[in-house]
Each structure stands twice: as C-alpha cells, then as structure tokens.
C-alpha cells in the first residue's frame, strides 16, 4: 500500500506571530521599572497556587459558594484562627463545607521541564542592555541574570464537607481542569505548571463520632525561583565609544530588506576623519560593505572582527562618502528565518555576452542581497535590473560586453 502523501511544510504561524508572542511574553515578565524580571520566591509561588484554587475550584453547595480558607495554613495557631473566623461556628470551628490549601513544608529540587538542563556555578547571562545618562555622559548598563532555580512544591487541597454531591462537584471541577496533564497559574507574568498527583479519601466515617468527608487532592507545582539578589548590573565596556557614536550627526541609517530574517542595511555618511563605523549591534553574518555602491574587499579594503558591531577602514573614506553595510544580526550567527527555516546565501557570477538579458540562478531566490556589475552595485530601484521570476533576473539597461555580473542572494 502506498504511503499516504504528507505535507511536511506547513506554516502554522504566519508572519511575525511567533515574534509578537515572544515579545508579549517578555513584556508580561518585565512590567516593573527595573528592566529586569521581578523576583519569584517561595511565597510568590504559594500565592499563585492559592489564587489558582480560589479562581478555579468554585463549588456551590446548598446555594452558597463553598468557603476557601484565604491563606495557606501554617503551624501558627493564631494565624489559622484568624483565617477561619469568617465562617466559624459558635465553638470557633470552621463551618462545613470548606476548602483549604496546605503546603508541605519540604520543597524538593525541581522537575520543571524548562529548567532541567542546569548550568553550574550560578553563572549569569546577558539579559538586556539599558541606556544610561548621568547628565554628562551617555552609556549603557548590561543586565545579567543567572538561570532560574527549579523547585517542586507539593500542596494538599482539602475539601471537608458532609454531602456526597459536594464531593462530586469538587471532583468534577478538579478533573475537568486537569484533563490535560497540567494546568497553569500565573506568577508575576510567568506561566507556572501545576500537576495533579493523586486523590485520596481520609473521611473518618465512624459510628459514634461526628461524620464528614475529607478528601485530599495532591498537587505539585513545577516552579522556579528568580532571586534579584543574584542579578548583576554592570556598566558596558564601550560606554565612551557609544557616546561618540550617538553624538555624531552622521549616524547610522538602517532599513530591512527581508522581514523574514531581519536582514539589515546600515548606511553611514563619512566625515572624512572617521575610520571606524559601528552598526550598534552584533553583526552575525556580514554580507558586504560598499562605499558609494562599490563593493569593498574584506581584509583588504576594510576589516571586521566576527561577532562585533564595527567596520574599520585602514584610511578614512572621503568626506560625504556613503558607506553601506549589509548584514544579518543573528546573535550566534545562526542563519534562520522567523519560522525556524534555515536560509543560505550564495553569490553567482555571469558574463554579459551582449545578447542574453536574462540570468537564471541555480536556486529559488528568497531575497536579492546585492546585484553588482564589475563590483558596482545596483539596487532594484536603479532601473538596471529587475526580478522576473523566482530564479531569473533581467538586465534592463545597457552595459559593456564582457561585464561581470554578480548576484548575491538568499535561498
């Protein structure tokens, strides 16, 4: 039997949906004024669990909502008393039915999947660069944070009641909520998973004692702690240099030529003295550097250290020369588009024979990075060439026979 055909290139998310969603998640956790995520400690996670129970486990019994003890109960007697007096009887006992959340004191090493791969020694990692201004000098601070520490916290959510129907309602509510493996609570913008471990009945149903049902629902919250005591804020190394960059009126001008992969073209205007130009961010892959449209040769006409933001010339370009840097800013030089699809770059050369106007490249063109004739580049609006299909470019202007045409493109 033939293997059914499968479509293996399905774009589930279109456009910049994933980028937007990632940004949205980032915004949720950095709502404070510090440019850093807020601390998440044990008490925050406990509060998240308590809110989860209050908001999701609502049971109506005899026309009234079953009371939830508003705090997590500990060994302090007076604290327990103050949290149950709202629904206490004349003996000071909590009226049935009610729901309580009890945390087990022991907190275990975490099993949260997102932090199972741990980095030793509490090493801190780059989180953000934040501009600073001390009144005289502009600079930036680098914010670094360590990997969050995963912890598992166990809770018993207990319902005490006198009617079987209340048990059924509560059970239905919990099991529907946990029909997937886990449900989520939100702690300071972070989604924290909760897993239902087991359900047990501890009802003391005896003849000559007061009768009621007690059922325990055991949950594990797969949390993590973020301690702001471990955050590092250090001045950026190139603070003074950054000031020079931003003070000049011949600053960088950028445009994106391919939204899918954030391909950037940065333009500078030379002042005749400057030999070093920075695009303000790490250059992952450098495609080319042009002066007045002429492609420059690396390590001859200019220098660039991989991963840095600077382009250096041995001699300053002439005043008002237009310097154009085309690059991909991927932090790790991983060249993939926003859908996770690998993108490759290639340059193909053709010789103009005086008759052939169409030049067909070997791959389907994603984006044309540069089109040059004998090293002089022309953009698509120059009227020199146009793209007539996914693989073919057509010359639309006169040129010398024997001219070398270079097409640098993504596929």
């Amino acid at each position: 039997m033939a293997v059914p055909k499968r479509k293996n290139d399905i774009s589930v998310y279109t456009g910049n949906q994933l980028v937007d969603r990632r940004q949205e998640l980032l915004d949720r956790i950095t709502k404070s004024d510090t440019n850093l995520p807020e601390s998440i400690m044990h008490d925050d996670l406990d509060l998240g669990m308590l809110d989860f129970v209050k908001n999701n486990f609502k049971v109506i019994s005899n026309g009234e909502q079953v009371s939830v003890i508003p705090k997590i109960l500990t060994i302090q007697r007076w604290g327990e008393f103050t949290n149950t007096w709202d629904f206490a009887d004349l003996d000071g006992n909590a009226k049935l039915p009610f729901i309580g959340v009890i945390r087990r004191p022991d907190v275990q090493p975490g099993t949260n999947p997102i932090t199972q791969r741990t980095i030793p020694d509490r090493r801190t990692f780059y989180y953000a660069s934040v501009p600073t201004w001390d009144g005289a000098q502009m600079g930036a601070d680098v914010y670094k944070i360590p990997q969050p520490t995963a912890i598992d916290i166990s809770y018993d959510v207990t319902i005490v009641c006198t009617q079987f129907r209340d048990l059924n309602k509560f059970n239905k509510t919990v099991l529907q909520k946990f029909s997937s493996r886990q449900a989520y609570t939100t702690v300071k913008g972070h989604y924290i998973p909760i897993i239902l471990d087991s359900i047990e009945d501890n009802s003391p149903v005896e003849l000559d004692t007061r009768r009621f049902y007690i059922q325990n629902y055991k949950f594990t919250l797969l949390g993590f702690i973020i301690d702001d005591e471990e955050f590092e804020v250090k001045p950026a190394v190139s603070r003074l240099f950054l000031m020079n960059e931003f003070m000049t009126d011949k600053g960088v001008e950028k445009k994106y030529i391919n939204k899918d992969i954030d391909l950037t073209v940065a333009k500078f205007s030379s002042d005749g003295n400057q030999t070093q130009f920075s695009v303000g961010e790490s250059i992952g892959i450098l495609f080319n550097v042009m002066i007045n449209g002429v492609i420059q040769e690396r390590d001859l006409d200019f220098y660039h250290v991989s991963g840095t933001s600077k382009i250096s010339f041995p001699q300053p370009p002439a005043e008002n020369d237009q310097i154009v840097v085309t690059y991909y800013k991927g932090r790790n030089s991983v060249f993939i588009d926003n859908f996770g699809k690998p993108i490759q770059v290639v340059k193909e050369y053709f010789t103009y024979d005086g008759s052939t106007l169409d030049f067909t490249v070997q791959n389907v063109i994603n984006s044309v990075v540069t089109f040059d004739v004998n090293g002089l580049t022309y953009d698509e609006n120059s009227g020199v060439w146009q793209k007539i299909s996914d693989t073919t470019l057509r010359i639309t202007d006169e040129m010398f026979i024997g001219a070398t045409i270079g097409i640098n493109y993504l596929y």
Partner: protein
Amino acid sequence: MENKLPITRMSKFFGQEDFDLQIQIGQEYLHGDINMKLVLYRVDRDGTDTDAVYAEVGKDQIKFFPPIEFNALVKIEAPKNSSYKSGVVRYNEPGNMTLSVYIHHLKELGVELRYGDFIGYPETEEKVRYYTVSNDGLVTSDNAHNMFGYKPYYRTITCVPAQEVEFRGI
C-alpha cells in the same frame, strides 16, 4: 393482636408492683429533683424529600415532627482537640452525649426515639447544642438495663454533636 407473655421470674421477691414503684421513685428523682430537660426533634422520614441517588438532604431540608420535651440523665464527654489535616485546620470537637431515659417515660409521651433523630440540650440560656442520635439504645437485653433481671426499664442513648449544616434548630 400481639401475644402477651406474663413475666413471672423472681415473683417470690419482685413483681410488677415493685417494678412500677422503683420506676416511680426513680422518675421522681430524675424528673422532679434533677429535672434535666431535653428537646427531641424526630425526623419525618416519610415527609422529607431525599436525594434520589444518595438519600441525602441539603441544609435545612429535613422535615420534623413537632418537638417534644423529655427528661433524661445526661452525661457529656469532654471535648476533643482535633484537626482535619495533619494538625492543621484545628477544631474543638464537642464530646458525645449519653442519655439514660426511662422506657416508661417515653411510653407516657407516646414517642419513639430513633437513630438519626436530633436532640437539643440547652447548655446556657442562650446556647442550645444539638446532637444526633448515633445509638438509639433499642436493644436493652443486657443485665444493666434490666431491673434485678426482671424487665428492662431504661434505654441508653448515645448522641454525637450535630453540625450546623445538618441541623441548627427549628
């Protein structure tokens, strides 16, 4: 008509007249001198609508016959300090109440006291504690409940504290 079998055991020493006299003296003491009064709330088992599956009723859904005051000897156990969950969510469990009531007294009142009925015992002028019958003491065949081996004369009724959701007075 039910058969009646005369009790003639120990007739040389103790008979019906002696039995009645003893009960009369006891009631004089219990009802007259001690005068411990309670209120019996008998559940109307036929008139109460119960859940079709679990035979439960909701709060304040039980129907009762008219309350009846009766006398009994009352013993209440000490309260117990307990918790619902591993020492947390503590509650002070009132002790059980044990009643000793003359069978003759119940017959005079024309009531039957059954498992699951409710009994109110006024602890103070303001506070009535309610109990539910966990043992109605209908079986009185043991020596303790028989007067000198002649005939049973009182019932021991065990009650456990009722929760407000079960019963809170009429």
